[in-house]
């Protein structure tokens, strides 16, 4: 809990972030970026089965939020879950191995990209069902409330998920029970090929918070400090037992909805305008400008991350595939 205490103290001001924490956030964001760029390449080469949804461009959200969490806190994720896993401390080795369906994968090869989980780290799973995470996070918050040790649950969800019934039911339930849960919207402007301006009847997802009598804010999801501060307030509030909040982060995905998306629904100008505001570059500039790090230090991190990801892919490809009969295990804890 010690580390959590520190984090709570730091909760509300990004200025208070010391060099070590900043370097850690930079490293996590870089790890997510490189993880996704590599995954995209490997998918194109045909190595990765199934559907893969990449988080590149949205790193500031997962990292800015999870900076306030410990392994004792819970998160729920969705189909675009790699960034949440890395930010919550899931081992990159186990993630790559899972993408390749290996015995050494986070889910022993049974889940794949859309179901990566690590319950020991408080990562309650990516989810193949849009909106599936809302009730699960609400339930984890119910456990947190029962445990009475200041745990919180965070539910990451996309703009498209904001129109599912489970959004409504869970925010209402969390509201009346004053549960320690924070709903973090990752509004990247699209649900598959459909713009949020078409699929959602209000302008901002945060406009809906009032219907549940909870605080709702919209922040620049490309700015890790803005995310860090807004999430910090909401999480501290939850830890104090004052109930749930809704934090909307306006962000953008660099890759297609999934690998293979023709991407004809958005223009090059649009993509370029967002890449020009890259969240990792933004953090990098601010650290250099404020003398919190040198280009060498950051360069070293970049190289170390690259090595870690190379190792992870090498290890995963050397790792054994599960035996076919493994299909039959893990359905029940016990049966008959």
């Amino acid at each position, binding site marked *: 809990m010690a580390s959590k205490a520190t984090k709570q103290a730091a909760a509300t001001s990004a200025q208070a972030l010391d060099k070590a924490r900043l370097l850690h956030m930079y490293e996590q964001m870089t790890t997510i970026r490189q993880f996704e760029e590599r995954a995209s390449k490997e998918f194109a080469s045909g190595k990765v089965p199934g559907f893969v949804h990449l988080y590149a461009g949205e790193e500031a959200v997962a990292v800015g939020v999870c900076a306030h969490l410990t392994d004792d806190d819970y998160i729920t994720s969705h189909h675009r879950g790699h960034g949440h896993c890395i930010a919550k401390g899931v081992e990159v080795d186990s993630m790559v191995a899972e993408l390749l369906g290996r015995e050494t*994968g986070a889910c022993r090869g049974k889940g794949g990209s859309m179901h990566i989980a690590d319950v020991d780290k408080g990562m309650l799973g990516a989810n193949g069902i849009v909106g599936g995470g809302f009730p699960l996070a609400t*339930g984890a918050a*119910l456990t947190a409330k029962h445990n009475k040790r200041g745990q919180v649950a965070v539910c990451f969800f996309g703009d498209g998920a904001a129109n599912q019934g489970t959004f409504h*039911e869970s925010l209402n339930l969390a509201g009346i029970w004053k549960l320690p849960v924070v709903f973090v919207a990752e509004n990247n402007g699209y649900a598959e090929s459909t713009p949020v301006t078409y699929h959602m009847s209000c302008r901002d997802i945060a406009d809906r918070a009032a219907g549940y009598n909870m605080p709702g804010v919209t922040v620049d999801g490309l700015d890790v400090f803005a995310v860090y501060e807004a999430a910090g307030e909401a999480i501290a509030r939850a830890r104090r037992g004052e109930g749930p909040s809704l934090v909307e982060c306006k962000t953008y995905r660099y890759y297609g909805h999934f690998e293979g998306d023709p991407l004809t629904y958005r223009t090059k100008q649009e993509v370029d305008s967002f890449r020009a505001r890259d969240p990792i570059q933004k953090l990098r500039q601010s650290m250099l400008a404020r003398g919190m790090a040198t280009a060498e230090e950051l360069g070293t991190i970049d190289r170390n991350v690259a090595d870690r990801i190379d190792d992870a892919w090498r290890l995963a490809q050397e790792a054994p595939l599960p035996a076919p009969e493994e299909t039959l295990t893990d359905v029940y*804890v016990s049966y008959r």
Partner: protein
Amino acid sequence: MAVAIRQLTYAQAINEALREEMRRDPRVILMGEDVAGGAGKEHPEAEDSWGGVLGVTKGLVKEFGRERVLDTPITEAGFIGAAVGAAATGLRPVAELMFVDFFGVCWDMIFDQGAKLRYMFGGKARCPMVIRTMIGAGMGAAGQHSGCHYSVFTHMPGIKTVVPSTPADAKGLLSAAIRDDDLVVVFENKMLYSMTGEVPEGEYVIPLGQADVKREGADVTIVAISRMVHQALAAAEALEQQGISAEVIDPRTLSPLDEETILNSVAKTHRLVIVDEDNPRCSVATDIAALAADRAFTELDAPIKLVTAPHTPVPFSPPLEQFYIPSPERIVETITALMG
């Protein structure tokens, strides 16, 4: 094991199981619509004013308080999904889905989340929760409050299904379900709540996956589910007059299914009739028939007969509803034709 024996109703037996399990394990909580009632009201009578729509959970909030007996809004996907999230993180929720017919509004949380997370996470998670829900026609509750639907739950991997037919079974099976580490759905037949029977005092469990031979017989095996056990027993009485000796098997749980008890009985009687109130297509009735048609084929002397509800929703009007429910008469006719 149990000591003294008294007469309790099926509803009282369920209430007692909940009370005993909540006493022995503080992680067990109840959730559901009006499982206590009158939430937030000040005057004394409001406390515990419902205890569930038919009063089955009455009194529990008085002993365990509103922290462990949670009235929910009408938000089945929300609270059943919350039960899944709570179970995956250490609580042992018992969620009440008032009528099983409402599973349509929360089905994803049951079959796709709670039932699958352990598998999809490679065995590194568990979902120790129970869903209690009401089934059955006979009350004139019509098309959206009278279904059985346990066939659909039994079809789905990761779910265990329990169908108690007596007060004693209801208590022992519900206790076992609450102690089980998987997602268990207990189907309570609303037509049985007022039925009385002998129930042992104190804690006891009936292991999931053990059928019960409710009546021994030599000429034909009747496998009957939930309330149909009593229709089958009535039919067996009538058949005895005609010199036909029917064995009545109550599987008690459908997933897991006690295949051996059924197959052994067929090996003895060489005839099989399945009585089921659920709709007939892709049902538990066809499931048990297929089991016997494969693994007891050489033992069978006659076609396998199913006495089930028709392929229709449940009608409202009493004569129609009675026509819908398998009756002792239909069972007798089917078996006399089979023997003749």
